[in-house]
Each structure stands twice: as C-alpha cells, then as structure tokens.
C-alpha cells in the first residue's frame, strides 16, 4: 500500500462524504477557521503596514516584531492558550493570527516603501491629500507585493489550522489527528490531501485576485 492507495481508499469510501464527520462539514469548518484568522490578521497587519510604509518609519521595529512572531511556536502557543483559556475558538485563533501577521505586515511595509517615488511626488504636486496619495497611488502600485504577503499568510494559516483538531475542534485536522491515534493511515493521507488541495485552491484564488485587481499598467512593469 502506498500513499496513493491510501488516498484512493479514503475518498472512495462513501461514509466519508456525509454526516458531522463528513468531508463537506470538515472542509467548511477548516475554511471558516482559516478565513476568520486571515481576516483578523489582515485587519491588524494591513493598516499598520500601510501607515508605516507610507511614512517610512519603524521598519526596524516591524522587522523585530515579525521575527518575534515567527519565533513563537504555533503549536506551543495553541497548547498554552488551551490550558489558560480552555475549550473554544480563541485558543486556536491566537496562534493562527500570530503566525499570519508577520508576513502581511512586513510585505505590506516593504511594498509601500519600494513604490517608485516619482509618481508619489507627482500626486503630491497635483495637490492630492496624503490619504489619497496612499490609497490611489501607492496601494495600486504596491498591490502585487501586498497580495503576495497575504497569500503567504493564507497558505500558512490553511496548513496550520490542522492543529485546531488537537484541542478538540473540527476542521480537516480532525482526520489527521484521529487517524494518528486510530492508526488509520487512510484517514491521515486523506486529510493531508484535502489540506494540501485547499492550499492549492488558495494559491489559485490569489492568482485570480491579482489578475482582476492589479491594474494592467502595473502588471506590465513587473
């Protein structure tokens, strides 16, 4: 039996396709955890990154914060929060957000910093207020990089959200954790395939989003 056989056996078993432990339910749970974590992380990382990038200050502090965030082990944080807070979504959200903020923050800051200064000066010369300079000139030009930061964060969240199952929540990690304890490799391989598939779908979504939102002029330049 190799990995492909396990995956085939898992997906062809109809019992895996319905009920509270069925693939659709677990998949929806996983997407929900991931989306919530990504939204919270973006709500923290994007504004801070945009502002610090715009004013060009605090880059070293941001780099330090990002390294610290990366150094905190997600799994350890999960167990610690679970012990302190108890059962619930919060102990899962905290490590996921800590994981996702650094890439969003650093990439956004870098993206805005590295915008060609001449169009920004031109916009100021035309009398644009700072908010419009940021939102109408810098953000559109920096968008490809900003999206790549969000993409990295999203993929890390999707793959790490599996650990939610360790503290008795759902998601696709359920199959991996349960399979581990039941010595049921079909389940483990099936769960891993689903998570990797979801990560690839995430990549595709970001690729499509970049196609739709990045202005053609900016795309030609890169």
């Amino acid at each position: 039996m190799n990995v492909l056989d396990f995956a085939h056996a898992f997906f062809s078993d109809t019992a895996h396709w319905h009920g509270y432990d069925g693939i659709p339910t677990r998949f929806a749970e996983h997407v929900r955890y991931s989306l919530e974590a990504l939204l919270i992380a973006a709500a923290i990382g994007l504004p801070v990154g945009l502002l610090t990038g715009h004013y060009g200050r605090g880059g070293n502090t941001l780099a330090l914060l990002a390294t610290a965030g990366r150094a905190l082990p997600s799994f350890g944080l999960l167990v610690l929060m679970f012990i302190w807070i108890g059962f619930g979504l919060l102990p899962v959200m905290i490590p996921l957000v800590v994981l996702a903020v650094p890439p969003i923050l650093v990439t956004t800051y870098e993206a805005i910093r590295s915008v060609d200064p001449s169009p920004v000066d031109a916009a100021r010369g035309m009398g644009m207020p700072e908010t419009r300079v940021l939102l109408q000139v810098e953000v559109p030009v920096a968008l490809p990089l900003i999206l790549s930061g969000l993409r990295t964060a999203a993929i890390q969240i999707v793959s790490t959200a599996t650990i939610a199952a360790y503290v008795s929540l759902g998601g696709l990690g359920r199959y991996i954790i349960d399979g581990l304890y039941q010595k049921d490799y079909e389940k483990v391989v099936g769960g891993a395939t689903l998570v990797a598939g979801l990560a690839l779908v995430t990549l595709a979504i970001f690729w499509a989003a970049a196609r739709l939102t990045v202005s053609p002029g900016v795309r030609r330049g890169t």
Partner: protein
Amino acid sequence: MNGFFDLPSDLQHSYLGLVGLHLREALLPVLAGLLLSLPIAQLCVRFRWVYPPVLGLTTVLYAIPSLAFFVVLIDYFGQSETTVMIPLALYSLVVLVPAIVDGVRSVPPETLAAAQAMGFGAVRRYFQVQLPIAVPAIIAGLRVATVSSISLVSVGMLIGNQGALGNMLYDAQIYHRPVLAVNAVLTIAVLGLLADAALVLVRLLLTPWMPRKGAAR
C-alpha cells in the same frame, strides 16, 4: 515561577539536554535543505524553464501540514527524529531556493564578465564570485527557514514525543503544570531569536565589504 526548570522525569532529559536536542532536530534539516537547494538553485539559474516547476513543487510540499507529513513518514522511518527532520528539510526549500536564485541572479553581468576576463572557469566563478555576492540574500532566506524550523519541531511531540522542547507541552497538560508550557514556548522563541541574531552576525562576517549601517533587515 516555581519549578520552572523542574522537568518531569519522563522527558528523559535535563532542560539543557532538551535544548540541545531541539537545536539538533531543527538545524540539521536546514543545513540539509541548504546543501540540497544550492545545486537546485544553480540548475534554475542555468536553465530558466526549470524554475517555475521547481517553485510550484516546493510550494505544494510546503502546503502539506507538518503533522500529516510526520504521520505519513512514520510508516517508513518509525517514530524517530528522522521522521521529524525530513519534512523540515523539505519545507526549508520553499524559502531557500528562491532566495539563492534571486541572489545569484542579482550578480551584475559586468562582474561576471570581469571574472571571465580574469580567466575564471565556471566553477571558480560560481564559488568565488556568484556565491559570495549572493550571501546576503541566502542569509535572509536562512533566517526565515531557521526560525520557522525551530518553532515547527515542537509539533513532533504528537508522534511519540519526538518534539524535544515540545514534549514539555504534553507534560504540561497531563500533570496540570502550565508553567511547563510557558517554559517550552518561551525557550523555543528565545532559541529562534538567538539563531536569527547569530545568522545576522555570520552575514556581517562573511560580507565585510557591505556597509555596516542601514540595510539591516
């Protein structure tokens, strides 16, 4: 913080023993990843069409959750350190290969032409010109890879206590000693920051021609 360094005997290691184990389990894979990604990156620089598929493959590998990777490898390597280290080495590729490719590509063509004019062969040009100039980019990649490797080792706890410092997390739960979990998280974070600082130092030593101030990321 009573009994902060007071480890239960089932961990079979002293605190420092666990730190050493953790560093070995985290750093060996990054080293292996570096040795593996140097030739891969060189192939990608030499033959441009190789780069996109390699990038795609490493991204897919990176998308496989570490836990699933560990469990699948148990079948082949048992509940051992090897099982933890192989995925970590593969994860490091997703950061290291692009870092090295970008670094080597950033070498200006005039520099390469000068090396050629001085009679450097392809091998000498690679080791004495391209690699040294790529050092800052490679170290930047190594920093990300090393810090995340150190933090990921703890997941190994789930496969028969192969998580070094992460094993303390399990004991924190069964013995109701949250202090142990605090200790594990803090120690791992500090190790990550120290490794990061050490790599910055290595870069300063390896690139004496770079300006000391600024550009410190």
